[in-house]
């Protein structure tokens, strides 16, 4: 296909991506280097005959609003926002390092800083949910693949439900069930004999709840991908393995699993990307007090009454850096594959 035809075909899609994905990234970079204007203060001297003159400082609301309206971007702040307490908190980290006697103590001090707390949850969520999703999805796929044909349709239908439901809605549905007055919450109270048990109160239980939700929500995606892959396992190879005396486990280990390896990589890649942006469950479970993620912090900065664009943009940039680190191994691998394919 000649370059000009290619360009004409791809132009709408490319333009949409450049304007609404690439340009916003630039806009985020610019915003992250700026910070909102400080409030304009005015000094007034009031004199009265008895106590003499007094200087008072008040906030000039009108002038502040005018300045902010004129320059919504704010003033240039360099890397200031990145280093402040809500982000990388360089000063606080240095202080915590100096004051701590052990790594554990340093870690717990770090956890009191909002950015590191969000980072810890995001990474824990990503790297716990992803393997569980893969294992559970694979098990479901293997078992459903062995079911008699009439059961397959309905079981697949039910299995897809947690995946297609809106994440916010799915997490709200579970949230109502684990409420102390909901069915799971009250059952747990009876089971443990602790009438005050609340899954929302402790940070650990909140994290566990969110992770269980994540596995529940994403396992169907892994299942359906693996199930699709199982349909293309060659029956000839399987039968040949059986004739050679391979047991059920050996057939699974040496025929099925190697066939599924590329799909596992695919699911892992998608899951790493999607779990890293975890956000809706925190809103749905109202879990922000005990667990917040990078995406949630951005949302929180933007959704409040007077949004902090600079702060949101700095967190966004740090998130994008995180995504880049996650993706580099994949990109390098794809690049090698592509080159080896060109040579051969």
């Amino acid at each position, binding site marked *: 296909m000649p370059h000009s035809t*290619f360009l004409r075909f791809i132009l709408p899609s*490319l333009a*949409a*991506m450049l304007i609404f994905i690439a340009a916003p990234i630039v806009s985020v970079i610019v915003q992250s280097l700026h910070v909102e204007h400080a409030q304009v203060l005015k000094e007034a001297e009031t004199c009265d005959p008895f106590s003499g003159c007094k200087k008072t400082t008040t906030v000039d609301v009108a002038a502040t609003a005018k300045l902010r309206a004129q320059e919504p971007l704010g003033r240039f702040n360099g890397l200031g926002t990145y280093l402040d307490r809500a982000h990388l908190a360089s000063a606080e980290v240095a202080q915590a390092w100096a004051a701590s006697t052990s790594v554990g103590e340093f870690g717990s001090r770090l956890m009191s800083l909002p950015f590191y707390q969000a980072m810890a949850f995001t990474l824990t969520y990503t790297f716990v949910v992803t393997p569980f999703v893969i294992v559970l999805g694979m098990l479901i796929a293997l078992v459903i693949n062995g079911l008699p044909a009439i059961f397959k349709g309905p079981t697949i239908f039910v299995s897809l439900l947690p995946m297609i439901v809106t994440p916010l809605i799915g997490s709200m549905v579970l949230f109502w069930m684990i409420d102390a*007055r909901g069915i799971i919450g009250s059952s747990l109270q009876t089971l443990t004999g602790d009438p005050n048990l609340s899954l929302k109160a402790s940070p650990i239980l909140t994290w566990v709840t969110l992770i269980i939700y994540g596995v529940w929500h994403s396992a169907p995606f892994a299942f359906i991908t693996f199930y699709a892959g199982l349909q293309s396992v060659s029956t000839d190879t399987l039968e040949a393995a059986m004739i050679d005396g391979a047991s059920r486990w050996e057939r699974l280990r040496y025929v099925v699993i190697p066939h599924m390896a590329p799909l596992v990589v695919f699911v892992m890649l998608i899951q790493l990307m999607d779990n890293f942006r975890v956000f809706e469950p925190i809103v749905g479970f109202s879990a922000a007090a005990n667990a917040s993620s990078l995406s949630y912090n951005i949302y929180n900065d933007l959704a409040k009454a007077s949004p902090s664009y600079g702060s949101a943009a700095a967190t966004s940039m740090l998130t994008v850096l995180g995504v880049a680190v996650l993706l580099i191994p994949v990109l390098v691998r794809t690049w090698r594959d592509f080159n080896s394919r060109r040579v051969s």
Partner: protein
Amino acid sequence: MTVASRRSPLLIAAGASFVLIWLVLAAFPFAWTLWGSFKVQGDFFSKADWTYALKGVRTLAETGSAFTGAGYEGAWIQQGFWRASLNTIIVVVFTVIISLIFGTLGGYALARSGFRYAFWLLMAALVFRAMPHVTLVSGYLLPFFQWNLWGHLPTSIIVLVAINQPFTLWMLHSFFLNIPRDLDESAMVDGCTRFQAFRRVIIPVMWPGVITTGLFSFLLAYNDFAVTALLLSQENQTMVPKIASFMGSTQVEGNVMFAVAAVVSATAPLFLLIVFFQRQIVGGLMTGAVKG
């Protein structure tokens, strides 16, 4: 000899119970919420006894019958959920249509171009796919406020289209790779231009791939929260942010039931979607994921 011929009963029992447990885990929350949405708050969130939710003791006492539509009435009429659902329909329909038009053209070009930049474009799309949506939204807000684009439905539609493009391109690109090149190239030998070949030869055979991709675009637009919650004004709100706004008012007796009813209402179309398109969803992942 079939592969399944030598199963031990133990393995069958283990498999069956595993599937049963999974099915309960997957379906029970939905069934429970659907049932509970026709009760009053005192039953669905029962202080006294969880079986109240099944029997509807307080619903019977408060409304005179075991089921009540009060939650639905409150959500749809009192809280204006009908308006949010209309907005959702507009956003979703336009997002899907525009995504598919852009995506088929782009995906076709990527599948037929042998140049190295096609590969780089696909890689860039993969990187864009990985961007958390809310990071992009933080880039939109200021410019959109300044240019007075904030709050309108078309803005959200075009943003969702763009966010959707990387995935749409990948999916349709791998689908078009499966359509033999000879098909459109022979049409061009017969004197068609590339675009005519696309229109007359490719469009008639591309519908299975387009329908599957459309389903996933639908899910993305329908399930979105980050974009619609931050880019739409109060009166243009779609269903998901509207439901989130119900949550703020759970302290008031009855309002949480509005949210429950709204949740059930918003999930119903998704159920219908899998009832009708289950085969396309599974089949689409089969071609899209296995090849792509």
